[in-house]
């Protein structure tokens, strides 16, 4: 693998030449997809202060994107069960490559790059078997498919690179779907979500499951802190008369810690968290809950609930220079400081799902 990669690196350097980095497109802090008033879906580069530095057309409603760590390239995934993803040159909007899921696979809508930007990992469903898979793509070779390995569970959704650069964390949501039946959940009575850590070759390092009574809590989205603490956001598939925690923290080798607000706040969330992020000072972790129109903040150290903020259709969430940045389906870009939320910008568009961090510092 190493020699092959070294070879490919040379190839990339030779054929592609110097590629523009993120500073060439206004140094966005995040990528986010949105629906615009003319009915078009676009991928936007957003700064942490809410400025839109570019927008590029997408062929349809996307889910998340992945930002290349060096080049100004974004991988935009179609909503699941999409079978393609576009690699977009954010300087021009042109399509650099088109990723097609291999026959029998579809994408789940999330992906992550290796630290050196040579490999892209994508969460996929091998749907006839109902197995979760991670696709591996060769960036330097025009995003050619290198292969795939098991995600360690069913229904992998979000995937993040761990700070060691040598492992990835995968949120196996546990829910089996098949493209023939749309988004119908086929295995709720037997679902068993997990959080899987594996190395970049797919060897499982550690797997975490929640207690049996929480096995209908689908582990969906992830954030990771510099020290490797993973935050996972969940979506409850059991009866909504129960209000289980929708956020968990896990450090490799440890036991997961679940975080929830008091029942009067927790019960308003409809069992659904959309995104999760750590604040820039690493002391706060938050989830967005679009069905409860609420953002919940927690103290990482103590795990205690700090506050709920009422925000209509809030979903995108990321670390900002001062606390957290959020987006809403009503067009808001806002920030959460220690004590309050503040609207920074209001766009004409409806911000979708997630804020994907762009590493501009490299």
């Amino acid at each position: 693998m190493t020699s092959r990669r070294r070879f490919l690196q040379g190839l990339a350097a030779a054929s592609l030449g110097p590629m523009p980095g993120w500073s060439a497109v206004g140094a966005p802090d995040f990528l986010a997809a949105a629906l615009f008033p003319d009915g078009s879906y676009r991928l936007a580069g957003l700064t942490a202060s809410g400025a839109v530095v570019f927008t590029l057309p997408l062929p349809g409603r996307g889910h998340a994107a992945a930002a290349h760590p060096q080049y100004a390239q974004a991988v935009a995934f179609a909503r699941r069960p999409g079978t393609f993803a576009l690699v977009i040159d954010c300087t021009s909007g042109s399509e650099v490559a088109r990723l097609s899921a291999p026959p029998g696979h579809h994408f789940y809508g999330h992906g992550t790059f290796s630290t050196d930007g040579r490999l892209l990992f994508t969460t996929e469903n091998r749907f006839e078997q109902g197995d979760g898979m991670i696709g591996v793509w060769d960036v330097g070779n025009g995003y050619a498919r290198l292969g795939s390995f098991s995600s360690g569970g069913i229904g992998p959704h979000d995937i993040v690179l761990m700070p060691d650069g040598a492992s990835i964390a995968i949120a196996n949501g546990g829910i089996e779907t098949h493209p023939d039946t749309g988004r119908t959940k086929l295995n709720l009575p037997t679902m068993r979500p997990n959080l899987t850590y594996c190395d970049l070759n797919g060897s499982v390092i550690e797997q975490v499951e929640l207690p049996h009574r929480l096995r209908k809590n689908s582990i969906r989205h992830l954030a990771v802190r510099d020290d490797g603490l993973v935050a996972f956001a969940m979506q409850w598939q059991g009866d909504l008369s129960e209000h289980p925690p929708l956020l968990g923290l896990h450090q490799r080798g440890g036991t997961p810690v679940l975080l929830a607000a008091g029942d009067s706040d927790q019960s308003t969330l409809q069992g659904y968290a959309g995104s999760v992020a750590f604040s820039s000072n690493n002391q706060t972790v938050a989830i967005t809950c679009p069905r409860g129109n609420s953002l919940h903040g927690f103290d990482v150290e103590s795990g205690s609930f700090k506050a709920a903020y009422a925000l209509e259709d809030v979903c995108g969430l990321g670390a900002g220079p001062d606390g957290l940045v959020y987006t809403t389906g009503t067009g808001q870009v806002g920030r959460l400081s220690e004590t309050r939320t503040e609207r920074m910008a209001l766009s004409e568009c409806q911000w979708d799902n997630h804020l994907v961090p762009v590493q501009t510092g490299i």
Partner: protein
Amino acid sequence: MRKLVLLAALALPLTAFAQDREPILLDIAQSHILPSYARLADTAQVLSETAKADCAPNSDALRAAYADAFDSWISVSHMRFGPSEVDDRAFSLAFWPDTKGFTPRALSRLIDDNDNAVQTAAEFAETSVAGRGFFALEQMLYDPAFADQGSAEYRCDLIRAIAADIAANATAIDTDWQTYAQSLTRTGENSRYRNDDEAMQEMFKALSTGLEFTADTRLGRPLGSFERPRPKRAEARRSARSLRHVELSLIALQDLALRLSADHPDVTEDFQAAFDRAIQRAQSLGDPNFAGVSTPEGRFRVEALQQTVSDIRRIANTQLGPALGIGAGFNSLDGD
């Protein structure tokens, strides 16, 4: 027409916009949910008693009792919240779809091990949900694979155990609904629903997910893709009940939709017509287990039925939802 409504609305004080949900919630509880779960409990009890009297898989009496009880379940299976979800009761009644073949495996395991759990209701209730309920019983009654596996005596005990377990779960749901029904109309801070809007939303969700399940799963699974139709994935195909389930679910969902839209006659009218069309199409399809999806003509007919269900879904989402003031945002609807 729309302008007239708007003018009339302008003449009313603002508070008039808050809809009084209670009569509709009461009506749905009293006339839609409670009688349906009572019928399920009764027919399931008959099924269990019939199995006690005659456990032969091809017994006409047993198969008829099975059909009655299963009909009752399909007619209420869209009411998936509260009592049906306690202890996985609904999943224990109906483990389907079974994408990984858990049901035949669970049954084979019980039979091969001569598992004593079949002798005690409490112990049987602890076994895998995949080996219990209507779909497990269907395989015991209709699948040749289980006609001669293990001893006849054990198979008989297993059939009786499944039937008794169905009756116990149906009775438990029915009993719990007697008190749960009040939570639909007595909403408040300490109740299951904090206000009538939330209770109404639960009813609306039952309608929309019920329609989705019939369109995407009951019809979508056997349809598969054009290149690869999947007739063997039809629901309850062994007992040739697949199409019947579509029809029964539509009839039950129509009843719910008409009650939900009672304050909006134009929506009621559209529902009435769309459901009538879909039910009529189901009744004239003549392909009980969707075996026809393998042929282009047969597939076309099932797709056409699926389309009529999609038409109903559109009315629910674009007319009933807004009329009831049940909206959902861009992200909260996405579900990803």
